[in-house]
């Protein structure tokens, strides 16, 4: 099945995959939590530290100039990766969570007041719930939630009913981190825009799995984390249309984000710097750019096609395992398989998989409301990246068979 895509040679780029765990070769299926890094990304970090490490912007020396070029160059790489109209629309943050908090605060200050509503969906990650709860609390606003059906799919007519003049923003995930379902953002965003409502898309689970074009989506805000797309920890991206970045007040204050500071009056730098207070993680951004170049070379379409095959294969193989119960009933899953083994606590399944060298995640996956809605309690989540293989899926299936026996 791996035509056009040589997974063996790709795996060689990821040294951690050669690791053994409890004497077993590691099978890393916790990619939705964080992804592994290719050699070139770590090499880029080393190179940056040892050849042009200096604080960026405003300095007159060569090292700083090189560091700034790497950092600002990364902005252009990110712009290209998600096809933003301008690199000024790319704000670097600490991660998806901070990106969303930034918008919740600054958009809230600029556009929201008491009684207004924010709309989210039932399948959001906590990071796309709690910032809005905090905003609603601070501004006495109301958080409304688009319901899903028992299959785990968004109820689009309910969504349409929730729209209205009080809704100031829709914040919605592109792909659910539990179910792997992709929301139909095209019509969803179109509907919101018809009523003049801007849309924030949480792309944390999407960017590593499918091509993203923020202009084609017409997303007003788009967020993702570097560590979930083969880049370093500690870096995130907020894309926002110029219009909003211009209108929103700064989030944090400090160095870099100012124009002039006086005790009486401070003026702010232009976008995107207005939103980047303090020394940025300029090594992290350079390494993120390297990660994006790496996957662009492989090709997002190739990755998407390969993962689709792998996911389909997994659904077929795992479906044959006694006691295997898949969560949700979704036409098309993006590299995420949530399940339970009948009668066995997810924690026990995860613990035993670990002893067999297989890393999965168990629990509520930072999406308690979703699991409550589905009424399932904690579940196991196997999530893939393009370096996973059919052999690994096979090992997962075999392990689950063995575990099922152990507990029964």
């Amino acid at each position, binding site marked *: 099945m791996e035509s056009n895509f040589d997974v063996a040679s790709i795996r060689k780029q990821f040294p951690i995959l050669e690791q053994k765990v409890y004497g077993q070769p590691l099978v890393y299926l916790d990619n939705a939590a964080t992804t592994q890094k290719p050699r070139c990304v770590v090499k880029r970090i080393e190179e940056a530290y040892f050849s042009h490490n200096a604080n960026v912007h405003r300095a007159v020396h060569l090292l700083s100039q090189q560091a700034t070029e790497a950092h600002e160059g990364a902005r252009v790489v990110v712009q290209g990766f998600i096809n933003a109209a301008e690199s000024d629309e790319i704000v670097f943050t600490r991660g998806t969570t901070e990106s969303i908090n930034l918008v919740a605060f600054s958009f809230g200050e600029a556009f929201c007041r008491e009684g207004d509503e924010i709309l989210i969906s039932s399948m959001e990650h906590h990071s796309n719930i709690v910032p809005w709860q905090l905003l609603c609390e601070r501004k006495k606003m109301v958080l409304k939630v688009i319901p899903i059906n028992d299959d785990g799919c968004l109820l689009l007519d309910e969504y349409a009913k929730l729209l209205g003049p009080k809704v100031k923003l829709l914040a919605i995930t592109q792909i659910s981190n539990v179910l792997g379902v992709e929301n139909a953002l095209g019509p969803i965003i179109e509907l919101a825009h018809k009523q003049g409502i801007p849309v924030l898309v949480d792309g944390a689970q999407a960017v590593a799995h499918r091509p993203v074009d923020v202009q084609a989506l017409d997303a007003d805000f788009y967020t993702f984390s570097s560590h979930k797309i083969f880049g370093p920890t500690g870096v995130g991206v907020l894309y926002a249309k110029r219009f909003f970045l211009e209108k929103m007040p700064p989030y944090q204050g400090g160095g870099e984000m100012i124009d002039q500071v006086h005790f009486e009056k401070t003026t702010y730098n232009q976008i995107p710097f207005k939103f980047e207070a303090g020394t940025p993680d300029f090594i992290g951004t350079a390494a993120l750019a390297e990660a994006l170049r790496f996957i662009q070379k492989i090709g997002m379409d190739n990755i998407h096609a390969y993962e689709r095959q792998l996911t389909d294969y997994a659904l077929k193989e795992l479906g044959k395992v006694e006691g295997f119960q898949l969560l949700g009933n979704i036409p098309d899953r993006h590299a995420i398989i949530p399940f339970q083994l009948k009668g066995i*606590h997810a*924690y026990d399944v995860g613990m035993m998989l670990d*002893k067999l060298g297989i890393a999965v995640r168990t629990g509520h996956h930072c999406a308690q409301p979703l699991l409550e809605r589905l009424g399932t309690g904690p579940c196991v989540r196997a999530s893939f990246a393009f370096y996973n293989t059919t052999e690994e899926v096979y090992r997962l299936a075999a392990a689950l068979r063995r575990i099922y026996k152990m507990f029964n």
Partner: protein
Amino acid sequence: MSINEIQDNIIQSFDEIEDWMDKYQLLIDMGNSLSPLDEQYKKPQYLIEGCQSRVWISASYKEGKVFFEAESDTVIVKGLVYLLLKVFSGRTPDEILKADLYFIERIGLREHLSPNRANGFTAMLKQIRNYALAFKLS
């Protein structure tokens, strides 16, 4: 048998097993053999909520000794609970408070004590000591 003798016994029975899966099979068997906790104790005041699993623990004090009963919703934690009760149940508060708990580490289950393991197990250990202290002072 002293607390340490029991711990040594436990260590020995796990030491005889080489394979990780077999060790855990033993733990699972122990978990399955744990007598269920009376429903009256499955209440919030007895609950220790980990992030992934829950443990209920109750204690009584008879003739200077503390008796524990406990349960969990996961079998592996139940196995750990089984071992803990074996070590601690029926001991005087002083024995419990002075005990040096080393068997978990030694049978290779240290991971359950790590800050990563939000399974309520560490909290349960603390709760056992709290009970002992409370009975001692009462």
